[in-house]
């Protein structure tokens, strides 16, 4: 099933929701993390980004919502230029782009429900945030999202009381609160055991299939990319080394991406 273009709703067909043009990022210390990266993502696609540590996966994802400022190039999202947006415009763009992280990035001392509600901040008046106020609809929505990822009973627990897999599901619920069109997932399962990894990836797959959310997900394991993604982009030293369906990656390509000494490790 990998590599087969999933059936998409007709109205999004052949529209590129994300266009990346000649994206380059050079850090202040001179490290070139991204080197002239260009690709396009049609609406509703599940894209896996693979590559060695330091190949630029995280930088690429963070440039898209400008947690990291790109040095050069353009990022167009639904024909809006993200790279030239001012603070206010960027905020409006960011709130439709969800993001989940390798370290989950929950506020550990806050309650689970508060962490989920934080996904709604982009839609909340900041003076209301001063008194920690969210609307009743937001509360109900947050509980529904927790229900969806299967941990509604943990809503009042502190975030650090949850296991890793549960924390990542809170992270997904938080991103869902944004009502996202695009989900960036930065190594979402790298800190989890194989079984939990699959359960988290299944939730991402569900969002992709049921809600039509496009997903850009960086992964360590090719096997995961093969199982869940429509398309694989492989980065090496900040350049695109491969772009295509996962089953096209044979032994030769694998060595090109991961280096001569690499041995395949599977995660089942």
């Amino acid at each position, binding site marked *: 099933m990998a590599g087969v273009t999933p059936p998409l709703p007709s109205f999004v067909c052949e529209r590129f929701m994300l266009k990346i043009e000649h994206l380059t990022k050079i850090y*202040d210390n001179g490290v070139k993390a991204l080197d002239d990266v260009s690709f396009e993502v049609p609406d509703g696609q599940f894209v896996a980004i693979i590559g060695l540590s330091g190949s630029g996966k995280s930088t690429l994802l963070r440039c898209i919502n400008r*947690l990291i400022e790109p040095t050069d190039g353009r990022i167009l999202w639904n024909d809006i230029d993200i790279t030239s947006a001012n603070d206010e*415009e960027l905020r409006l763009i*960011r709130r439709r782009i969800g993001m989940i992280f390798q370290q989950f990035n*929950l*506020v550990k001392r*806050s309650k689970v429900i508060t962490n989920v509600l934080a996904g709604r*901040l*982009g839609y909340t008046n900041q003076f209301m945030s001063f008194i920690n106020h969210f609307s009743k609809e937001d509360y109900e929505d947050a509980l529904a999202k927790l229900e969806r990822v299967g941990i509604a009973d943990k809503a009042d627990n502190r975030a650090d009381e949850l296991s890793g897999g549960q924390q990542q599901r809170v*992270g997904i619920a938080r991103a869902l609160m944004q009502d996202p069109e695009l989900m960036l997932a930065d190594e979402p399962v790298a800190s989890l055991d194989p079984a939990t990894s699959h359960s988290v990836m299944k939730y991402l797959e569900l969002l992709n299939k049921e809600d039509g959310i496009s997903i850009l997900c960086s992964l360590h394991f090719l096997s995961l990319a093969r199982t869940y993604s429509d398309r694989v982009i492989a980065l090496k030293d900040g350049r695109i080394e491969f772009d295509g369906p996962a089953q096209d990656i044979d032994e030769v390509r694998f060595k090109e991406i991961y280096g001569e000494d690499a041995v395949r490790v599977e995660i089942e």
Partner: protein
Amino acid sequence: MWGSRSPETARRNLLIVIGIAIAIVIYSFGIDQTDIDLRETQDETRQTSVTRALRELLSPDIFDQDSESQFAAVSMQLRCEDDGAASEITAPSGSEPTVVVVTGCVSSGDVITVEGFNFRPNTPAVLRWIPPNGESRPLTPVGTTDIVFDVDSDGHFATQVTVPRIRGEDEAHQIQAEARWGVGLPFASDTTHLVIEKMIETVLTALMATTLAIPIAFAISFLAARNLMKQVSVPAGNVFVGVILLPVGWILGTMLYGAVGQFGVELGSGELFNGATAEAAAPAVLLLLASVAGGVKRRQNVAGTGISVRLRVFGLNVLMVAVGIFVFGVLGGLALTASEVLDSGFLATFGNALGTIGDIIELTIVGVGGLVGAVMLSSFSANLVQHTLKDLRGIESHVAGFVLGGVMGAVILGLVALFGTQGALLGLFAPVVTAILGAQAAAALYTYVFNVDKRAFNVTKTQATGRLIASIVGAVIMFVIAAEMLDLSRALVQGRLPAEDTFRFFGVAFPVRSFIGKAMLMGAILSGIMGALSGVHESIPVGMTIYNGSRTILNAMRSIEPLIMGIVFVIWVGVGPFAGVLALGLHSIAALGKLYSEQIENIDNGPLEAIQSTGATRLQTIIYGVVPQIIPPYIAFTLYRWDINVRMSTIIGFVGGGGIGFILQQQINLLQYRDAGVAMLAIAIVVSVLDYMSATIRERII
């Protein structure tokens, strides 16, 4: 081995030798300068006095006891003719306490034996010489230093004393013996009562000082946290407009919000009804408008990015904030009313506290209004002009940069120079700020002339060095020029304030200071150059500027000892605990501000990133991402600071800051070491108990 010694090793060894030589010189000089002299400690009179002082300190006057006494006296004639042989002493026959001297005829300087009979056995006693005029003085038994001696188990004593030098030798003098013993249970002495009372005052001084410091240090800590401020950079045009409008916003804020706030205070305190004035009408109308506007805003739920929408939203926000300030003012006024109602009995303390809070609100509301106004106007207009400035291209952008940058420089240096008119030494700030601007302008010029890439990774080492040299040269040149133009020697050598001139405009005389004008001119030129070179689009690291500024202020404040601040505040608000609260509070702001901001720098950055990526504003990111992480360490450091403040408040009294230090100093000056012992014991107990308590609580929190 030895053959392989490299020049590297040789150089290191040489450095070590030089280091040791330097250390020897420094320590010799140190011993010489600090008058270290161990013979001083061997001196006998000094040893005697230190022994006495220590002994008294270690016998604190904690308890007191009711006592009973026995008195007995014997008369004697001085310089009498009968200088016969000493008569034998015979025990008196009665059972009354009696004092007998060996001879009834003595002169000054004689050593005489005094014996007592029938006193209470085993009781401490003293002898006094009472001349005819009644000015008794204690007699120290020969061979001792203690005036007290003991009556033996038979009720008898025999002591030798020296006849003191006295006037009126022809008349009869008396030697009186007193035996004194305690009855009943011991009770806390007057000193103990006083010390306890002052100790409570001390602990409360520390508490109030810490409380005063918490909110201010909390606010500053965000500005002094590198990880939060590093990412804040704003296009140059926005910075120019924002800074230019800060003072304007302040003035408008004090006018608008100050009036509304004072109206609130007057309404709450009932002052308004005593003599309703026409002045109250304007704020009242404004409030009416504001509440209507609030309703409109709720219904319309305005959104969008057009200029007219922004203006409308800003207008609504201005009115909403006015309502907030008004409510704040009313609360302050109500506190004042409450303090008048609760002016007696058990609730008087609360009434008093409420009254103080009301006073604080009444006093600060205009300033708060100004601050809010400044921040609102500056951030709004910076935001608003962004749309206009965004479309400026090429030369237009640089012209706009020149104009706006120039005005900004003038405003900044105008404010700095205004500050400089408050004290001679403060006049130094204007040249310093000019020099900083000069350095920036020179670096910008260098970058422009040699076409240096603005991105850090593309700058070669030579270019970086060149830029550094350019900025140093620029700083020095501008400092010299500014020092000359602003007549720095006047401020530094003569210690005078800049002169005030009078400027006539249509026959009306305005007071002006050419000092401020010159400073503004320099600021305008330098800042104009930078603005012209950068244009209005270049992003300026405002965050790091604020970070460096607030860190510098915190460090400067921390380097002033609370005792010195105490001296200033005693002059300002008089001797007493309030001066201590202010001195310790100010120092605590600096100390806590630094501790707090270091905690922010230590937080986990991940949640911040996550919350930012949801489209949250900076404020929301802080509330949801930073605050939950810093609360436990903040509580711990606040307790720690309170602990330190208790320790410091015990000595802030030495300069008049109230509390236990005040009486401790008096006791020491009056050589009442037994009383001082009580105070020191109390300090030791309170400090160690609080130390233990705060350590325990801190352990639980973290």
